[in-house]
């Protein structure tokens, strides 16, 4: 009708100090701009992810900051604007889902529609139940349905009210991959028409890979990187994030030599005589660094390999070998120093082909660019 509707972008600039006896204290201090579509907030536990969502939803009051959606201020501590959570029109699906256990699925979904006249309410509830494929459960009690069904009902309930933003706090972590994908597909489908910003919080690297279009990495209350999943995950610069993003091998080391012409440096692991070649970091010779290597990026060879491009070849011995699902996890000590243990992931086929067993001598092969240098 010629009326320009500004895109419902969520802008937030927040500062909130949290102190706790059990959890580590940190200061959440972030500025973010979330466009319509799914944005993942990724970080280890204690990074401030839930605090961030609680502040946006209005359940926690930040010490300072502003929150606006599509130009409307929900919070501006300086101007004493603080819209209560009941009026923010922000949907929030908690980790625990918080479905009302004494109500049916239908009553749960209708809960936020109290102001809607009965006929419209009924059709809206039906529409939401169908969109998330739970219409057959309408009359079941919320605590009598399966975990995946509860996720769907929780989404349907929070989206029934046509919110302006959807916040998801690790709602799918407990589900298996197939179920997760199908629920996310339904959510994407639903959001095609609504086009609202969705913030999805997780500490799982796998979820970042499968769900993310945009990722914000949060650590100890600060945003440490933003970008595509690939960009964010491949360059973790903090070791707590590296652990969260699935770097099974984390070593302390000292830079021994810079070869700037080659774009590499040598790092001696603190524990022993192992030396590893890594890409150049922002570190001078003699500085202590942390080194992160994914277990899946390390090759094993049963004979000393030659004619390889990989620059790191380390002799060692398998000390344990354990099947986990469809892969083997091997622990390998380096001969140079038994205290250094590498974790290596192998496929079932690789383990079979190489006839690997505990106590077998092996060579570890690691590409220079599989070694990530972290600022600690």
């Amino acid at each position, binding site marked *: 009708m010629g009326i320009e509707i500004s895109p419902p972008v969520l802008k937030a600039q927040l500062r909130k100090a949290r102190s706790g006896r059990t959890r580590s204290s940190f200061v959440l201090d972030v500025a973010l701009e979330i466009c319509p579509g799914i944005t993942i907030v990724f970080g280890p536990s204690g990074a401030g992810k839930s605090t961030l969502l609680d502040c946006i*939803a209005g*359940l926690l009051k930040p010490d300072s900051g502003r929150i606006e959606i599509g130009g409307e201020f929900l919070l501006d501590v300086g101007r004493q604007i603080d819209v*209560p*959570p*009941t*009026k*923010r029109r*922000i*949907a*929030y699906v*908690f980790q*625990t889902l*918080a*479905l*009302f*256990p*004494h*109500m*049916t699925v239908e*009553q749960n979904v209708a*809960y*936020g529609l*109290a*102001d809607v006249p009965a006929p419209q309410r009924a059709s809206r509830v039906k529409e939401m139940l169908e969109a998330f494929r739970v219409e057959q459960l309408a009359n079941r*009690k919320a*605590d009598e349905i399966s975990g995946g069904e509860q996720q769907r009902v929780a989404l349907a*309930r*929070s989206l029934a*009210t046509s919110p302006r933003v959807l916040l998801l706090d690790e709602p799918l972590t407990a589900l298996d991959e197939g179920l997760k994908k199908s629920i996310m597909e339904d959510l994407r489908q639903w959001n095609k028409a609504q086009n609202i910003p969705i913030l999805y919080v997780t500490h799982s690297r796998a979820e970042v890979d499968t769900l993310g279009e945009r990722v914000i990495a949060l650590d100890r209350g600060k945003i440490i990187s933003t970008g595509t999943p690939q960009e964010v995950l491949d360059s973790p610069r903090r070791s707590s994030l590296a652990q969260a993003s699935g770097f099974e091998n984390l070593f302390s080391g000292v830079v021994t030599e810079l070869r700037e012409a080659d774009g590499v440096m040598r790092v001696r692991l603190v524990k022993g005589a192992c030396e590893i070649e890594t890409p150049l970091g922002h570190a001078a010779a003699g500085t202590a660094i942390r080194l992160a290597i994914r277990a899946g990026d390390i090759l094993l060879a049963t004979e000393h390999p030659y004619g390889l491009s990989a620059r790191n070849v380390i002799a060692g011995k398998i000390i344990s070998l354990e099947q986990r699902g469809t892969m083997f996890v091997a622990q390998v000590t380096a001969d140079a120093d038994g205290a250094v243990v590498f974790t290596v992931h192998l496929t079932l086929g690789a383990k079979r082909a190489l006839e690997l067993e505990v106590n077998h001598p092996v060579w570890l092969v690691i590409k220079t660019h599989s070694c990530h240098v972290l600022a600690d």
Partner: protein
Amino acid sequence: MDSLILSVRLAACVSAILLLIGVPLAYWLAYWNWRGKFLLEAIVALPLVLPPTVLGFYVLIALGPNGPIGKISEALFHRGLAFTFGGLVFASVLYSFPFTVQPLIASFEAMDRRLLDASALLGASRLRTFGSVILPLSLPGIVTAVVLSFAHTLGEFGVVLMVGGNLPGITRTASIDIYDRVQSMEYAEANRMALVLLIISFVVLSTVYGVNRRIGRRMWASWASR
């Protein structure tokens, strides 16, 4: 048997009044934090530790013709409250206060806060959250509170004696009647009444424990579908 009927009537009045006062008070104590809250909590718990004679004494003074409540009653109804059924109800409400309020606070505090957050984010006012989420999910606590205050009022002795005296049909409750009968060596009669009180108390308490164990979903369910 008159005294037994009087006791039951008293207990019923007291638990009804306590439910009306106790629910909002417990809600306030469970969900609000303010500086002097501990003082109010201590006052609520006071009857648990105070000798009934102490409570009864002060209530008697307050209800008497020169006490503040007695004066109000004189002005309104042209009669005092001491040694009346009304006075007995007033004293018993105070005396059983913690038995209503504490189970209510406990069950409100045990509520999953995320349910309350979820309700707020879906636009529900505090009142609606209270009626649709907190109350139905606290039903076992509410049943416990009512039953405990009922049973406690039924069994009280000291406060009733101090405030109500021993007027047959007006303030002579079962427990006082039993005492009287023992004093005048009517052991058979005393035993009959004592046995009835014992059985009522046992039934009431086993109801509380039974309800708290099995009430769960079934009762929530019927409540919610109403």
